[in-house]
């Protein structure tokens, strides 16, 4: 009996153990290499699709959606080799030069190096760190936007905190415009680097493109171990490698034993002229020049050279030390661009705070897009150290706690505020609108935590009467009630983005009311509002002669006749997006384009 029992038990146990090994589902990595347990160090190429999208600066789609959002870039391609405007791709928020032409666009910063033209970025994590041999990007619509590919030494999936994070440029190029909008596989020749990586960053610039670029997937090819040959490769010396460390910004003292007459004729020039000459140098050059001689050191450290400071092009190399060294020169700082900087531990708690406390007195413009090092404490520092701040950009700071935004209401002189894709909540925005009455430009695009946009619109109409541009992209519950109040209160509005606001119904007459109330209107986006109809277009034609940009994507109710009226009545019209408007076919588009050649008429397609 007992032996029978034990036999039974043994058999059952064996059955359990056999089915106990659950096959770990292979994620999208396809390992070509064989024999991982082999002793031979044969470096076979490993091909991987992206495992996870870790960070990005913007996207077209809605948060929590999988349509036109950046998360689609992970995994295998969904669309390639087809071309077209598909939901399963990764799409950035903007394209072309249209947004730069708007009044809400920030002024460009001086001293932007010519090689830096990135507008957006996306960071991808892969499963296995490899020494990259190739990177392939599947672009499925209007390709040509990729301008830089970088690799990081830090493994984003490891539990260890980031130390000694290095970014290397694998490839860099100019923004291009490919003649046809069709799909292509982009595989530039990349540099070989001396550390394994599983974190890639793509930077894009779509200013030359005719429509939104769309990306489907990214492949990282590499070897796990470098072969001996790699050691003999002549290292590619890039001029940017020389300015590798911002430690050069440290003024080491240098050989200042020469007398002043040893400076050549430079000291004969008037002070202001030398200042003017130096104002054309990029920041690293300025810092290097400071180490040459005492005279130029004096000039290069003159705070007047640092009234505008853009550190965004150097995001990969910036850390606390850099800020510390610049601190003494930035006492007259008025415009500061720290977008994209400080992530992965580059800025500590004290570094940023002490810099702002030293330099924030005259600060007027502060760009902090995608700065994930920000927290409530640092926003508090900003609100205290920069009392005269007029422009604040917190675009895509999506890890910022909702509580942090309450400090912004202390900045009562704010004129431009960008909160795209942040977690700001109802009470904070209402508090900001109560105190910041000088607001001219407000961006609340994709702010999903705001509960009631009608109340926000009502507050804007009451308090911010000089509002010039308002971005309410994807604000999910704005109704005609709020819109009517908004347009009756904010009569100076020139730009209004109401794209993907599903709760606005044309039948309430709100769009016609809008047209009548805003004579200065230059930009109107009614993207994917399926209720826009002919009478709305005709009303715009009648009341808004300054109209320059109009987007009415996806409505079935607008026909060619009303569009013709609009084009005739609005001579300044430059952009008209009528994609997926079922009454407008290619024949109509061609006819309108030939009649009105100054207007870019966009009609996207899915085949």
């Amino acid at each position: 009996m007992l032996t029978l029992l034990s036999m039974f038990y043994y058999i059952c146990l064996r059955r359990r153990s056999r089915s106990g090994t659950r096959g770990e589902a292979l994620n999208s990595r396809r390992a070509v290499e064989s024999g991982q347990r082999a002793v031979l160090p044969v470096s076979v190429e490993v091909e991987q699709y992206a495992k996870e999208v870790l960070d990005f600066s913007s996207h077209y789609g809605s948060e929590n959606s999988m349509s036109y959002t950046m998360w689609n870039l992970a995994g295998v391609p969904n669309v390639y080799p087809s071309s077209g405007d598909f939901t399963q791709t990764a799409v950035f928020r903007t394209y072309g030069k249209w947004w730069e032409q708007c009044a809400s666009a920030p002024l460009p910063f001086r001293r932007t190096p010519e090689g830096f033209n990135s507008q957006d970025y996306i960071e991808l994590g892969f499963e296995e760190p490899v020494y990259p041999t190739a990177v392939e990007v599947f672009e499925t619509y209007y390709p040509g936007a990729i301008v830089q590919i970088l690799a990081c030494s830090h493994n984003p999936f490891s539990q260890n905190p980031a130390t000694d994070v290095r970014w290397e440029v694998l490839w860099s190029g100019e923004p291009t415009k490919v003649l046809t909008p069709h799909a292509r596989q982009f595989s530039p020749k990349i540099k070989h680097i001396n550390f394994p990586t599983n974190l890639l960053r793509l930077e894009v610039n779509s200013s030359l493109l005719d429509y939104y670029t769309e990306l489907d997937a990214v492949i990282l090819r590499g070897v796990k171990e470098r072969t001996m040959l790699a050691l003999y490769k002549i290292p590619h010396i890039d001029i940017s490698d020389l300015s590798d460390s911002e430690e050069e910004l440290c003024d080491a003292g240098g050989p200042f034993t020469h007398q002043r007459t040893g400076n050549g004729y430079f000291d004969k020039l008037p002070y202001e002229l030398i200042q003017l000459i130096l104002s054309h140098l990029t920041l690293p050059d300025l810092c290097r020049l400071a180490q040459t001689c005492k005279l130029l050191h004096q000039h290069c450290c003159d705070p007047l050279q640092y009234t505008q400071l853009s550190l965004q092009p150097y995001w990969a190399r910036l850390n606390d030390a850099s800020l510390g060294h610049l601190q003494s020169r930035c006492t007259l700082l008025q415009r500061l661009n720290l977008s994209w900087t400080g992530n992965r531990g580059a800025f500590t708690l004290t570094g940023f705070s002490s810099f702002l406390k030293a330099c924030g007195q005259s600060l007027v413009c502060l760009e902090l897009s995608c700065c994930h090092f920000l927290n409530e404490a640092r926003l508090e520092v900003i609100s205290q150290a920069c009392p005269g701040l007029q422009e604040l950009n917190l675009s895509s700071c999506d890890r910022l706690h909702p509580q942090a935004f309450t400090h912004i209401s202390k900045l009562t002189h704010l004129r431009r505020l960008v909160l795209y894709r942040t977690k700001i909540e109802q009470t904070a925005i209402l508090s900001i609108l109560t105190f910041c009455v000088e607001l001219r430009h407000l961006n609340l695009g994709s702010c999903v935590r705001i509960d009631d946009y009608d109340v926000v619109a009502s507050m804007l109409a009451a308090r911010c009467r000089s509002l010039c541009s308002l971005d309410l992209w994807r604000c999910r519950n704005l109704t005609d009630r709020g819109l009517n109040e908004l347009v009756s209160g904010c009569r100076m509005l020139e730009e209004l983005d109401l794209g993907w606001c599903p709760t606005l119904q044309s039948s309430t007459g709100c769009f016609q009311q809008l047209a009548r109330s805003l004579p200065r209107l230059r930009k109107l986006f009614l993207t994917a509002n399926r209720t826009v109809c002919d009478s709305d277009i005709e009303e715009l034609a009648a009341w808004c002669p300054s109209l320059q940009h109009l987007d009415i994507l996806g409505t079935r109710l607008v026909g060619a006749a009303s569009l013709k009226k609009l084009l005739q009545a609005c001579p300044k019209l430059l952009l008209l997006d009528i994609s997926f408007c079922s009454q407008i076919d290619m024949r109509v588009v061609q006819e309108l384009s030939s009649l009105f050649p100054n207007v870019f008429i966009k009609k996207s397609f899915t085949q």
Partner: protein
Amino acid sequence: MLSVLSYGRLVARAVLGGLSQTDGRDYSLITASYGFGKDFRKGILKKGMCYGDDACFIARHRTADVLGVADGVGGWRDYGVDPSQFSATLMRTCERLVKEGRFTPSHPVGILTSGYYELLQNKVPLLGSSTACIVVLDRRSHQLHTCNLGDSGFLVVRGGEVVHRSDEQQHYFNTPFQLSIAPPGTEGVVLSDSPEAADNSSFDVQLGDIILTATDGLFDNMPDYMILQELKKLKTSNYDSVLQTAQSIAKQAHDLAYDPNYMSPFAQFACDNGLNVRGGKPDDITVLLSIVAEYTD
């Protein structure tokens, strides 16, 4: 001596009983699909499986196997809208949601809700409506979670008998509950049910259970006993025999649909409600036949 034996038996039973409850095998569904479009139209150029205005999908994920059927409401054709576009896009979207893991196995109505939301995020202005039925097998817990909106549905057959079935949801005759996207201004006139209105159910399944998910084209033409007769022929759980059975069921339903003298369940229901009709109901037929088996990679 006897007490030792009986004691031993007790221990044996307890141990074995304990072992079977902790049966750690993962289950999976071996699924085959087949169907016919009404008027012999098949969905051309559409990814996924489409039969006329019906659409379906079969998706695998690490944690679950998911099936879905959607019956596009044909009435839209009279208003110039292709009814197959809505159902096909809905099913493709649900398939993608499953493949990307954006779902909870125990909450299939979430797949419908998310899928419907994603349809609204499409730049293309979709119009139309369809029923929907989603069936999820949770591999680890051996539970089948279902949600059904409208008159498509499923049967679970064990040992030759129906042990679970879905209920039809109708507003009135031939007007099932449906997810829809209507032209602007017609919100009061066009039926649009929320995904939350779907019926949900969850129950345990065993190895060898047969699950038949289908649109009303099948259930309106073939009564249960005929379906069970066909299912008796399914002996093994390999894909080919499942496909063969699915095909025979669909074909039989298709033949019956065009038989003018046959008293179909649809005709029976009509008669019960005072309409004197006979014959089958020509309609799109979609059949997804699954059998519960052990999971193999």
